[in-house]
């Protein structure tokens, strides 16, 4: 059982006692009549070949409060899209699949591009964004929940707890992010543990008090890919299409709403999905992720009036390194008391790699402060191309016939 400490300036909903799933789900069925829920699932075709997705589908089959599922499929041929459709037909309620590599959706992206609205490169950010667009076009749901498709430990309780604060009119938050621990025989979640938190705290030391840093530091797992929000947020949010997606979403939520209407909820005792190597090929791996995240944070702060200079970044690098090293000591103790494996050398190597990533992020930011890409929000898109949502709906509906 977790503690009941309220972290920072947002609302934290803990897992206290043994909450009944049946009770939450029966309440959700009632709430969802007034606030219908769309579940957005960004997935690559490779995930259809992994066992995690079948587990997720088996759980979703039992859920009675979801109005529609919008699976946004990346890197799939037409043949694979058909197979994905057959696979998703197991779900007994409405499922629509967005075929991002299909001719119709490609034409939607081309339409955006020729009107000066670039939706970014293929990735989770763009996939999620197009799914929000379809949900807005469909106009059948008031709430959007999103989670990844590679969760090995998925249970429908995760979804229920994630959506509950947004659909319950008495709680009435506009955005809810999940949190959990990622522990097997060791602690995972290196980017959150060793980059985001130390970097946020280092920035607080170097630039002083800034509301966004306090907001970001309030999240126990700011990089969690699971969140739930009202559809209005999908309309006004601009999101990055690169690895800065999660931080970028938080920045937009912070910009548009009071922190009192934002919450984080404990959705699972443990969470397991694929692990990334520190350095990968072709712009993948944790280092690339850290560069994008750093840039996203710097850009958000710059937009909030913080003046960055070479001197500030040098101090930040040193402060970060110090704080991250202190953090390793804390986690070592945490691992020791819980009998977990803890490779201090590997953790130190990760911190060094992350410090370099911050340096790279800083230098890229200084070269071009406007360089961090953001996908325009749907309000702007519909203003530029009034018929785009109708086109998107037609494209998805035709693909799913």
């Amino acid at each position, binding site marked *: 059982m977790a503690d009941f400490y309220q972290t920072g300036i947002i609302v934290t909903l803990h897992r206290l006692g043994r909450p009944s799933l049946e009770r939450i789900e029966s309440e959700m069925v009632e709430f969802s009549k007034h606030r219908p829920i769309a579940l957005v699932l960004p997935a690559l075709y490779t995930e259809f070949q992994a066992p995690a997705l079948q587990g997720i589908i088996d759980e979703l089959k039992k859920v009675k409060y979801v109005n529609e599922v919008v699976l946004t499929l990346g890197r799939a041929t037409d043949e694979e899209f058909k197979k994905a459709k057959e696979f998703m037909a197991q779900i007994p309620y409405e499922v629509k699949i967005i075929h991002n590599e299909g001719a119709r959706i490609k*034409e939607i992206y*081309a*339409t955006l591009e*020729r009107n000066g609205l670039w939706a970014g490169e293929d990735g989770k950010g763009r996939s999620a964004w197009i799914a929000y667009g379809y949900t807005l076009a469909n106009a059948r749901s008031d709430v959007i929940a999103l989670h990844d498709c590679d969760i090995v430990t998925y249970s429908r309780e995760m979804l229920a707890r994630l959506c509950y604060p947004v659909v319950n009119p008495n709680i009435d938050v506009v955005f809810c992010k999940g949190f959990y621990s990622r522990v097997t025989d060791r602690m995972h979640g290196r980017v959150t543990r060793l980059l985001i938190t130390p970097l946020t705290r280092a920035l607080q030391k170097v630039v002083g008090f800034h509301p966004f840093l306090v907001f970001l530091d309030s999240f126990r797992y700011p990089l969690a890919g699971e969140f739930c929000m009202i559809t209005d947020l999908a309309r006004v949010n601009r999101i990055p299409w690169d690895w800065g997606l999660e931080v970028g979403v938080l920045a937009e939520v912070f910009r548009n709403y009071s922190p009192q209407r934002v919450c984080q909820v404990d959705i699972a005792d443990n969470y397991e999905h694929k692990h990334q190597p520190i350095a990968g090929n072709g712009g993948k791996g944790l280092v690339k992720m850290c560069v994008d995240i750093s840039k996203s944070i710097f850009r958000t702060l710059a937009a909030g009036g913080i003046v960055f200079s070479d001197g500030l970044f040098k101090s930040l690098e040193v402060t970060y390194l110090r704080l991250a090293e202190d953090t390793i000591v804390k986690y070592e103790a945490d691992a020791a008391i819980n009998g977990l494996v803890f490779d201090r050398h590997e953790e130190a190597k990760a911190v060094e790699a992350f410090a370099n990533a911050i340096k790279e992020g800083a230098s890229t930011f200084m070269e071009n402060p406007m360089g961090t890409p953001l996908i325009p929000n749907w309000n702007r898109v519909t203003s530029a191309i*009034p018929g785009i949502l*109708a*086109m998107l709906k*037609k494209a998805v509906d035709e693909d799913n016939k």
Partner: protein
Amino acid sequence: MEKFSEILFQPFRDFWQWFVKFAPNLMAMLIIIIAGLILAWLIRLVMLRILRVINFDTWSDKVGLTALIRKGDVWAKPSDFFGYAVYLLLAVVFVMIGLDALQIKVIDNLLSQFLLYLPRALSAILILIIGYIIAGFLSRGVLIAAVNSGYHHAKLIAEAVRLLFIILVLAMALVELTIARGIVIAAFSILFGGVVLALAIAFGVGGIDAAKRIIEKAREEKKEEKGRDIEHI
């Protein structure tokens, strides 16, 4: 035996004589069609270049023309679509002209009918396109006005206006195409008249009290104005 061979080969000789007479026409037809198709293709390329220079695609996206062609499940660029439509139209025209070179009476009649009908078909297409664009503008205008006036059913009103206007445009296009003219005019008059009458009755019945209040208020204001008049001694 000689007579039999005469009977046997005479049809072939007749056919050959007919063919020798007809061959130049056939050649002319083929040349016209092939040259016409090449010309149509070139016109399409020039048209595409012009449409791209004037940013026709982005204009189409903005005014809703792209959305209109997407409704028909056409996913090509608007410029490509219109370029191809023009090519097809020209190809049909050149094929008809080519067939005319055969100098067959039935085809001559068909061609003259086709050429007479062509302007009507083009103007019907134009009516549909312009009508759809105006319907979009009208609907947005009504939506903005209704939202600013605080009506709860602003979207419904805007969609109703759009639907009515599109019915009007469709009726106009069908009349232009001379398809069941009488039925179209009668159906349109009944439908449109019915809707207007229904709205008038609904507004009249629902607005009796409001109208009464407005008239009474106007009367009272008039009375008050009279009472305020300063009478000079």
